[in-house]
């Protein structure tokens, strides 16, 4: 009996694709073409390329990760339905029943908040009870939170054009909007690792940071009415925003994720919850992988930022506080990677460092806007 070596040949991505995958990709491309025909007058050449680029990227990601494909379709369908319910009138957000209570941009975001909070408690319950089933419920809740969050953003995007065509813009332009983005990206990154390493036990930890952001969103909405859609200052009217900001938040999200995993690592090391948490090796590996993702994307984001600055402020680097803090964050994780890679350092020291990294990152992300002035606070233009 001679097993053929060919049995062992790893399939290429193309070989793994089934009809459903092709239909999915087709759907995305069709959607992109539809959007192009309908809205191309609002887009410049770069934005058009982003549109089709997005179709390609999400096809690929969906192929690699079926869960994401489902999410993309879900977001698409619900958003379109919501938009249909608007019938071109912003007022209907508070009149039409389904919009008012479910899928107007505001309510969808509210549902996201609620679901994230529920998900956190469920994850912890699963951890204490060692129940895999409850764990699955928790990830289901997280998935639906992400679904509602993205619907909220999509519909908000549409709503901004209802206010006035010249006000319309992608909803990643102010703190309120990017906090939503932060929750969504962090959650997605976590769900990805959860699937890869089957680590539902970490959900409780990661959702702490996400719910901290949720708390901010709620405070910002109810205390500051920051959820109102504001027109863009001239400096922000650029296609760069559409790639710079998301890239940045993949970075922020991954770093936060790493920090929460680090906290789990430190507890496990101290013998707390050890029996319930994944092995230290796994924790260490997840921590490294997400910092790697974060570093890669943060590098891209910073570079895109520099290119944007070169176009908007007349210099690719102005040592403006936000820029500088981006550099500080970046250097911090470069140092982290070196300790690990080059000195082969492992364990608590790196975990603590990752936690400190979260503080630095938070300041770069939030502190700078609140305490330091500079070009990013859009003083004049």
């Amino acid at each position, binding site marked *: *009996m001679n*097993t053929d*070596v*060919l049995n*062992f*040949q*790893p399939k290429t991505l193309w070989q793994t694709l089934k009809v459903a995958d092709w239909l999915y990709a087709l759907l995305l491309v069709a959607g992109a073409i539809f959007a192009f025909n309908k809205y191309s007058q609002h887009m410049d050449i770069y934005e058009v390329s982003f549109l089709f680029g997005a179709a390609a990227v999400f096809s690929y990601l969906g192929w690699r990760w079926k869960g994401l494909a489902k999410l993309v379709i879900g977001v698409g369908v619900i958003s379109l339905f919501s938009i249909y319910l608007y019938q071109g009138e912003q007022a209907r957000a508070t009149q039409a029943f389904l919009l008012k209570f479910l899928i107007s941009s505001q309510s969808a975001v509210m549902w996201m908040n609620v679901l994230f909070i529920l998900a956190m408690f469920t994850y912890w319950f699963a951890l204490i009870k060692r129940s895999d089933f409850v764990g699955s419920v928790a990830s289901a809740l997280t998935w639906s939170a992400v679904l509602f969050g993205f619907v909220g953003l999509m519909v908000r995007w549409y709503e901004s054009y209802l206010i*006035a065509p*010249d*006000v319309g813009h992608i909803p990643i332009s102010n703190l309120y909007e990017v906090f939503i983005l932060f929750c969504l990206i962090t959650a997605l990154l976590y769900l990805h690792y959860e699937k890869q390493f089957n680590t539902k036990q970490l959900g409780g930890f990661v959702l702490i940071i996400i719910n901290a952001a949720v708390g901010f969103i709620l405070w910002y909405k109810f205390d500051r009415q920051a959820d109102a859609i*504001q*027109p863009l*200052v*001239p*400096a922000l*009217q*650029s296609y*760069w925003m559409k790639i710079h900001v998301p890239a940045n938040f993949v970075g922020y999200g991954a770093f936060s994720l790493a920090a929460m995993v680090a906290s789990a690592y430190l507890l496990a090391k101290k013998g707390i919850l050890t029996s319930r948490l994944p092995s230290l*090796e*796994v924790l260490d*590996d997840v921590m*490294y992988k997400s910092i*790697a*993702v974060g*570093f*890669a994307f943060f*590098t*891209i984001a910073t*570079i895109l930022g*520099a*290119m944007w600055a*070169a*176009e*908007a*402020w*007349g*210099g*690719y*680097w102005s*040592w403006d*506080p936000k820029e*500088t*803090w981006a*550099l*500080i964050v970046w*250097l*911090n994780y*470069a*140092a982290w990677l*070196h*300790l690990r890679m*080059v*000195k082969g350092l492992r364990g608590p020291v790196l975990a603590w460092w990752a936690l400190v990294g979260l503080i630095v990152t938070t300041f770069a992300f939030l502190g*700078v806007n609140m305490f*330091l*002035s*500079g070009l990013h606070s859009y003083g*004049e*233009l």
Partner: protein
Amino acid sequence: MRFAVSMLTVLGVASIIGTVLKQNEPYENYIIKFGQFWFEFFEKLGLFDVYHAIWFLVILLFLVISTSLCIYRNSPLMVREWKTFKEQAAEKSLRAFSHRASFSSKAGAGIPINVVDNKSKLTQYLAGQGYRYKIKTQENGDELIAAKTGTHQRLGYIVTHAAMVIIFFGGLLDGNLPLKVQELLGQKKIEVLDIPESQVPLVSRLQTSNPSFRANMTLPEGVSDNIAFVRVRDGYLVQELPFRIALKDFRIEHYATGQPKSFESDIVITDVDLKQPLTKTISVNHPLIYKGIAIYQSDFQDGGSTVNFKAWDLAGKSTKTIDIDGQIFQKGTLGTGESQLSVEFNEFRKFNILNLSPDGKGKPRNVGPNVTYKLRDTSGQAREYVTYMQPMQLGGKSYFISGMRETVQDEFKYLRIPVDDNFEINGFMGFRAVMLDKARYPQIAQNLSKNTLTQDANLKSQFEASIVQLLNTFAQGGYTNVAKVIEKAVPEAEREKAAQTYIKLLNSVALEAYNISLAADNKPPLAQNLQSQELIQDSLNGLSDTFFYGTPHYLQLVDFKHVEASGLQLTKSPGQKWVYLGSVLLVLGIFAMFYIRERRIWLLVKTNEVLFAMSSNRKNLDLDKEFERTKDQLGQLLA
């Protein structure tokens, strides 16, 4: 290596300083903030421009040098690792691997394994798994298959770190190091005096040959120029440009809510190398690049608008006015001799989007142009005034609004002058003139006493006398003055009542005065209705407030010619392409390092055994998983 990490950390910490201490402020601000001693101390440390301080550049330099050394030291090794199959590996060392396994011949029954057969099977397998391999026959006839994949990761190291060096090199080209050197050598000197550009000496001028700069120029509409200013610490240098830029037009567009929507400049570039002038519109995020110099829309200000006023004399009993013309950023004079005032026209704004709805919830509206100016007396004391050109709607009624404040800190106190029935200020001014004209008082008094009921002559004359007195009192300080008089004359208990009768009386007096002023330029008297009562009430309030306006000169803005100036930034950065090149390499290198995984497999095929060893330069879970998979696949193959 430890050095690398500490360099990265030190640079990070050093960068913080410049973000907490606001950089490149005017030096006075720092002096006020820290006091002379600390100011000088910080100045020495270069804390006001950290990122161009020598010590900071030195840190950067260290980082780059250590990175370069690092590349120099590690590259040979990396290249070797990249090339080699490590086919020299000895059986002994393979047996020492942490990830190893051995597949022995069937129950060691001595039936020799077909080496050749296995070899081809295994190499096929490795090829199928994406490995490249090399076969080395050992002295004892065993065959060693040394295989590797993902070794390009090693190049990632070189690319990443080289990228950092390239980026820094580019940054250096655009930095101000050359200028710093020239300053130290005394070849260049920053100008600190505010003098006309033409008088700036050569040592403070940068020629067009200057390879890299970041300069600013402010162009009023219709003006052209071929120099820009480079701000350095508390002074500046003049940068000469190889062409001339003219500003044809500057535009601001607003959203419905009043926030600015776009800033655009129509500029014309004239250059000997151009057949005809180059006309272009630049806006935020859409610069123009010409001759390697990028021209950006940076900010804007007034370009010396002309403003025309009617100057009324609030103190006088006449309604004569003088025309006064001014220009923003220029000075003018008012009055003569002792009481002469200099007028400093500071700002003109064509649009003012205000929210006048009482609860602040209504829509903000554009209330039209306003002008801000200072009146400075001979002793140097100044008050600041702001005047709106068009009447403003407040609570359904329209007023001419003008504000005054003693110092920049406090809020403006506003004078509200009601419009007359054809929305002019003249009605009020006529009324005012009569109210301040003693000669008119008897007439007013008589008119009023006519329609009192009593016939008693000396009651009447008493009544008229009291009116004249009231008028005099009011003319010397408005309500407050009247109040003073009441306090003196009337006992505590009756003041309230007295005040009310006075107010009533004042209103009828004012109505009379208003009608007299109307009659003077033969207009019909005011109709007897609520509207007129309110007009009188407002006019009295207005007049009473003029006593606190701080000057008898009321400047009514009647016309203007708006001239805007666009703030342009000009940069020449030869290093930019290097920085971008480095950036691209950096990203490629980082992804290579993170996501290309180097793995090596050795298969030593013996007659009675196949020895399998596996390694990777990144020892982690992925390797363990892959080792297990490979192991049992090999097991099946060799079974």
